[in-house]
């Protein structure tokens, strides 16, 4: 657990970080260090240059306005989990952040670092996919672009982020009065990572579900939208029976690669996707009944 040698630069601005990335061929950004440092210590990553963006203040903080939550990429999981404003505006984010790792991890780890690391077992990609979040990216020469999670995550540890690009912020819509959202995960007993995670965002009018966005992660290389489950849910009363019926469509949406290991096989995880979707929907609707 001793990292190989690297050069270290601290960037004061995003532009400087991009400049440093451009001028060093195998440079890597480091923010909270909670994904990169373990890889360095296992010597599985060997960037010759680390560009520390951890002190760029423009990348930090949570702002909520006009129905949009904007979270700077360097905002820590702890800041997200403990934000009262966010709890009211988009509670699922605060809740998901509070379930990541342990206190030490949440204190240092950042939402941006988590997203660009694209670990299939982490929670943010699933939650942000269900929320319909947008990722704001800055590139060389001050260029900017915005992508949706579906166009960002490519595979395990792989995204469409360019080598000279920086994820600057993440935007998600605030949840409306009739919306309920929940993230349920089966955590690995050792790592706490998601064996299966299910995020649901449902709009409820009266008892009836009028819209739904559901995503699962942990068991797939990149988060998968559960469109069959969503379709089965919309127009139905959110009772136990209908929820169970809708969740049973999960396997339709899981036709691609399913991850498995000695702790949890692909078969088990696939079955658990349905269970976790159900749990998330039950929890979400219990909230709506109160």
């Amino acid at each position, binding site marked *: 657990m001793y990292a190989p040698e690297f050069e270290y630069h601290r960037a004061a601005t995003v532009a400087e970080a991009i400049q440093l990335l451009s001028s060093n061929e195998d440079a890597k950004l480091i923010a909270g260090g909670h994904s990169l440092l373990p890889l360095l210590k296992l010597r599985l990553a060997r960037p010759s240059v680390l560009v520390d963006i951890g002190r760029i203040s423009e990348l930090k903080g949570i702002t909520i306005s006009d129905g949009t939550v904007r979270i700077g990429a360097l905002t820590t999981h702890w800041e997200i989990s403990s934000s009262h404003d966010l709890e009211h505006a988009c509670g699922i984010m605060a809740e998901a952040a509070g379930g990541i790792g342990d206190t030490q991890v949440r204190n240092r780890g950042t939402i941006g670092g988590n997203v660009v690391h694209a670990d299939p077992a982490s929670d943010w990609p699933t939650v942000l996919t269900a929320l319909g979040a947008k990722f704001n990216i800055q590139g060389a020469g001050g260029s900017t672009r915005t992508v949706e999670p579906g166009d960002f995550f490519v595979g395990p540890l792989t995204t469409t982020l360019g080598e000279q690009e920086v994820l600057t912020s993440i935007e998600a819509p605030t949840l409306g009065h009739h919306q309920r959202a929940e993230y349920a995960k089966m955590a690995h007993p050792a*790592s706490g990572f998601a064996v299966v995670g299910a995020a649901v965002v449902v709009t409820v009018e009266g008892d009836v579900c009028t819209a739904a966005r559901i995503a699962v992660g942990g068991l797939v290389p990149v988060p998968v939208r559960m469109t069959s489950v969503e379709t089965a849910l919309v127009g139905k009363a959110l009772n136990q029976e209908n929820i169970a019926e809708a969740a049973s469509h999960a396997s339709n949406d899981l036709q691609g690669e399913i991850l498995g290991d000695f702790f949890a096989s692909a078969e088990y995880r696939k079955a658990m996707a349905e269970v976790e979707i159900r749990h998330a929907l039950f929890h979400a609707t219990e909230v709506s009944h109160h």
Partner: protein
Amino acid sequence: MTKLGGTPTMTTRIFGSGIRRREDPRLMTGQADYTDDIRLRGMVHAAILRSPHAHAKINSIDTSAARNAPGVLAVYTGADTDGVLNPIPCAWLPPDSDIKAVDHPAMAVDTVRYVGDAVAVVVAESRYQAEDALELINVDYSALPSVVNPQAAMASGAPQLHEDAPNNQAFHWVVAGGDADAAFAAAAGDPQNHVVVSENIVQQRLIPNAMEPRSAVASWQSAMGELTLWSTSQNPHIVRFLCSLVTGIGEHKIRVIAVDVGGGFGSKVAMYADEMLATFCTMQLGRPVKWTATRSEGYMSTIHGRDHVQQVEMAATKDGKITGLRATVYAGMGAYLSTAGPGVPTILHGLMYSGPYEIPNVKGDIFGVFTNTTPVDAYRGAGRPEATFLLERMIELLAAELDIDPVEMRRRNLIQPFEDGHDVSTGLTYDSGNYQGTLDLALQHVDYPALRKEQTELRSQGQYMGIAVSTYCEICGLGPSQVAGAVGFGGGLWESAIVRFYATGKVNVFVGTSPHGQGEETTFAQIVSDELGVPVEDIEIIHGDTDITPMGWGTYGSRTTVVGGAAVVLSARKIKEKGKALAAHLLEAAEEDIEYEDGKFFVRGSPDQNKTIQDIALMANVAWNMPEGMEPGLEATTFYDPPNFSYPFGAHVAVVSVDADNGHIVLQRYVAVDDCGPQINPVIVEGQVHGGVVQGAGQALWEGVVYDDNGQLLTGSMLDYALPKAHLLPNIEVLSTVTPSPHNPLGVKGIGETGSIASTVTIYNAVIDALKPLGITKLEMPLSSQRVWQAIQQAKGA
């Protein structure tokens, strides 16, 4: 100037008081000196290259690039240490077992036999430089076939680890009492009145996880020919002894220091190659050398625990009296025999096959087996959890077969209460026991009938609640040295303690045991304080430095309080005797007229005519007025060799719920009723029980080593190896009864391992009980959600 002597003494009894642990402020505020905290002038750092193969021939090792890397002082391989360091010894060779104590070189010479086997060591100015240089070493291996399962390793055609150990059999040891074969023949011959149950049980391999990784700092002073070795050891005197054998340095020239050790659970009992490599390096280079394992390095190179495949049968009469037990056990030893490894599945396991029950006929065939895995040795409970599991599982199966309540099944077989000695069929003589007492208290505490009623109700609602009750007893407080010799333990098992008073009335107690988290800096002080009336604050317990402390065999086998504590109290009593004689002299009274109470020696009938222990300490140290022939000083030494082991016991209850949707188990309730005799400090006892229960729960629910078919360690870090976490556990309810040990001067028995001995099977049985409506009778441990879910799916499909 402070007035000496005459300090007021205490009147309330401190033995039995739950005072706070005196070691904790130091440990919790970062003021402890763990081995890795040691920094010596000129110290350099070692890093060890370990085999990535489970089994391979080493064709060549090219270290030239590493030698030339920045900061590197030296690179050594097995060729350098071979013949300089003697093999790492195994120190427990059970007799009559045809044991093959194969050579265990400190570094592999031509063959690696497990992932983690040391291949080369780099010494550099910094650990980073040493790690960088490791990557430059080029080892050319030819992979060989490997085997990781102990039963498979004994099958014909299995890859062979050692030429000298055909079929990978390290030993075959037999425990026999009564006539088990006759008992089973009788059962088979009379099926109207008998029943036999059989089961294959796998005690999965575990990784001990002390908070502090292993570490060594070795410093050779060539001018004096002396070695100082800071070592994360539970038994520094044994390290000194074995280090002398491995290095050839005289035992009198070796100082081993292990004062602050961050837990061990047995994993720091063993003598490791790594500490000897650090010693080799300092002797070669003349500079102090530090080596500290990383966590993942420890997972490969620190001993593992358990790893049994057990085939067990139990015979009983139809009215539920057990008539016989037979077991064949394949115990994985790893690639080499670790220091105490062979003693674990034999002496500490097979001899406990009667447990707390009258089982007249017992037979166990225990095969120690070499596999291409990390060596296996004592891990909290060490052999007794595996024995308790086997017994409690089989009794549960018998109860189910005979449709007798599992508690009643146990009652019909428990040994009746005894106060001074009870012989069991395996040849042991238990010291004292009241198994019914702990069982009654446990059942009363949980309201067992109410629990069963609740279970029935939940079952009718389709919910899965499980209840299990275990009764156990275990062997600890190791032990009589004569027995140690007879069972092949390569050392004694006595302890010594020096109690030394200074003129100021303050006390140092020097002990040979080596506490590393168990709290004896507190409980030993309580013993002395209780005996002599000196405030606890005036007593300091000194341990863990072989140059300062008297000989002792260390801390393991729940022996420190039982054996070491006995030495402490006997020394304190000698002080009291001398104090009486000196007080008689000073008070001008006859010695037989002197009485002692609460730190005061006084003339019978005249309590005002007294000398405090502090007065006595002052006079003995200045020696101005001593009786004729009395030596100065107030100090006593005791070498205590216990006449028997101690046998704590208890009854544990687990309540679980199982979610059939996903296979999740929740441990709802855990009740531990244990009897360790009189408790010196009940808060520390409770802490020991908590820790032990949690470790046992870890085996039942979360922990398990996974090797793939090529011997690669898949659970190589805490990302994959699941330790118990606080939020997954209930509040553990701890109760006790008190049955003193008749042979121990304090009446005490060990309590450090009881939790892990009883809890694994109790939780396991509770989960199986929960799944009873589905007809599930067996699951593989750890009881992961997936395994439980799969079993439920199969049962529902069937």
